[in-house]
C-alpha cells in the first residue's frame, strides 16, 4: 500500500514518458544511424525504468522484488551474448 507521502505523481511520469517518445523520434530523424539507435535504446530503458519504479511501485518495494526483475534480465543478457558468435559474427 502506498500512502500519499509515498505516491509518485503519476501524471508527471506520463508527461516524461510522452516526452521521451518524442525524443526517440527526434533522434531517428536528426541523428546518424548508429547514434540514433544507441539513444533510442537508452530512452527505451529509461521509460521502462520509469514505469517499473513509479507505476509498478518498485521504488517502494523490498529487495526481493527488484531481484525478480534483474535476474531474468541478466539471464536474457547471457542468451544474447551467447547468440552473437553464431548469428552476428556469422558464417
Amino acid at each position: 500500500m502506498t500512502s500519499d507521502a509515498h505516491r509518485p505523481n503519476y501524471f508527471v511520469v506520463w508527461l516524461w514518458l510522452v516526452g521521451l517518445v518524442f525524443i526517440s523520434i527526434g533522434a531517428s530523424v536528426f541523428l546518424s544511424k548508429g547514434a540514433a539507435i544507441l539513444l533510442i535504446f537508452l530512452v527505451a530503458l529509461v521509460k521502462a525504468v520509469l514505469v517499473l519504479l513509479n507505476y509498478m511501485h518498485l521504488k517502494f518495494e523490498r529487495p526481493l522484488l527488484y531481484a525478480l526483475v534483474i535476474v531474468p534480465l541478466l539471464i536474457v543478457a547471457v542468451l544474447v551474448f551467447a547468440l552473437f558468435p553464431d548469428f552476428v559474427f556469422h558464417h
Partner: protein
Amino acid sequence: MKIFSTDHKTIAKQYLSLGLFWAIVGGLLTHLMRWQLAYPDTEVPGWGFIAPDFYNMVVTMHGTIMVFFVAMPILLAAFGNFLIPLMIGAQDMAFPRLNRLSFWVFALASAVLLASFFVPGGAASAGWTGYPPLSAKAEYTGVNWGLNLWLLALALEFVSFLMGGINFLTTTINLRAPGMTFFRLPLIVWMQITAAVLFMLSVGPLIAGAVMLLMDRVVGTTFYLPEGGGQPLLWQHLFWFFGHPEVYVILLPGLGIVLEIMPVFSRKPIFGYRPIIYSTIAAGMLSFIVWAHHQFLSGMDPRLAMPFSITTIVISVPFALIVFAMIATLWRASISFPTPMLFAIGTLSIFIIGGLTGIFNGSAPVDIYIHDTYFVVAHFHYTLFSATFFAGFAGLYYWFPKMFGHMMNEILGKIHFWLTFIFFNAVFIPMHFVGLGGMMRRIANPMQYDFLQPLQPINVFITVAAIFLLLSQIPFVINFLWSLFRGRVAERNPRQANTLEWTALSPPLHDNFERVPVVYRSPYEYSSPESPEDWLPQDQPPAVAQS
C-alpha cells in the same frame, strides 16, 4: 476425494496418477523400440511390424513422455505439491485455486498429447528435441497435426508448471510457520524451490522458440527455414537454453528425496546442510551457462566449444559436493535398509555413474566421437532414471504411509528394488560399449550398417534385459494398488522422523495440522544429545533451560 479439489494433497495425487499412467505408456514404447533394435523388421510381440517412420515416432514420444509427462509431474508436481505445505507448516498452497487450475491444464496437455497418437499422420516424430528443419515443415516427416499437437501439449504443460512454480515459490516464501526460517527448511524444499526458479526463468526462451516453430508450421513464417532466410541453429540454442536447466529441474527434487530419506535411516544428521544449499544454488546458476554442450557438433561457432566445456566441467563440482555430503551422512551411521533406503542408496550409486560419464560428454574433444551415439543415451539414463525412478520410488515408498494412510509391503518392495537395480544396470552398462562402438542414436535398424553388425549381440542382450526391467515393475504395481486398500494402517510417524509432515495424521486432515506448528530447530537432529530418543522433531519445544 473431490475431483475438482483445491487441496494440495489431492492435487498431488492427481498429478501422481497421471504421471504413473504416462510412465506405463513410456515403458511400453520402450518395448517397441528395443524389440525393433534387437530383431529389426520382425513383428514385435503384441504389436506387429514397426516401420522406420513409426520408429521415429516411438523414440520421439518416449523421450517427450518421460521428461515432460512422467518426471516433471511426479517429482515436481506430485511430491512438491504434497510435501511443501506440510513441511513448512502451512495449511495449503498460497493459491489453492490456481493449483487446481494447474493440474487441469496439465490434464488437458495430456489429452492433447494422447490425441496426437490418433490423428492422421500419427504423433510427432522429429525427436523429443524437435529440431527444424525436420520439424518445421509437415512434408519432411509426413506428420502434420501430430507435431502441431505436440507443440500445443508442451505449451500447455509449460503453462501448467509455470502456474505451479508461482505457487511453490510464493508458498515457501510467505506461508512458513513461525520459527521456520529458510535455514530450517528440509532440503527437499530447498531443492523444489530451486528447481521451480530454474524452470520459471529458463522456459521462456523455449516458449518463444516453440511459438516460432508453430508459426513456421501453421502460418508460413520462416524463422527456422533457410529458404526463407531462417536459421535452424536458432532453435537449437533456444531449446537447449531451457533444456539444460530442465534436466536439473528434474534432478534436484530427486536428490532432495534422497537427502530426506538418508538421515532418517541413518539416525544421523545430514552432513553439510548449508554447503549442500549453497552448492545447489551455485549449480542452479551455472546451469544457465552450460547449454551449448549439447551443440558441440551442430555447426555452431567452434570458439564456443571451450567456454562451454569449461562451464560443464565446473558444474560437476557442486554436484560432487552433494554426493560426498550424502556419503558422509552415511559414514559410521546406524543404517537400516528398508525399501525407501535401498532406493535412495540406489539413486546415489547410479547417479554417480551417470555423473562420471557426463565428464566425457561435456568435454568437446571427446564429445566429437561420442555425440549422437548410445554412449550419450547411457549417460542420460543413468542420471535421469536415477533421479526419476530410483528417487521417485524411494519417495513413494517413504511417503506412502503419509499420503494414503497405509504401509506398503516390505518384501515386495525389496524384490522390486533388487530386480530394478540389477536389470537397469544390465540394460545400460552394455549401452556404453555399444555407443563407443559407434552405434548412432535414433536409427531404426542397426543391421543395415556393416560396422554395427558385430555389436548386435549386445543389442539383443540389452533388449532382453529391458524386457525384464519392465516386468520388474509388476511387484511395484501390485504392491501399490494392494497397499492402498489392504496395507497395514499407518500411524502418524512410523519411522520416527523429524520433519513436520510426520506430526500430521496419516493421511493428514484437510487443513493439515490440528494446531499451527511452531518450529524450534533444524530438520536433521537425529541422535542429538538434547534428546533421550535418537530423533527430535522440529516442532518439539526445547526442554526448560537449567538455571
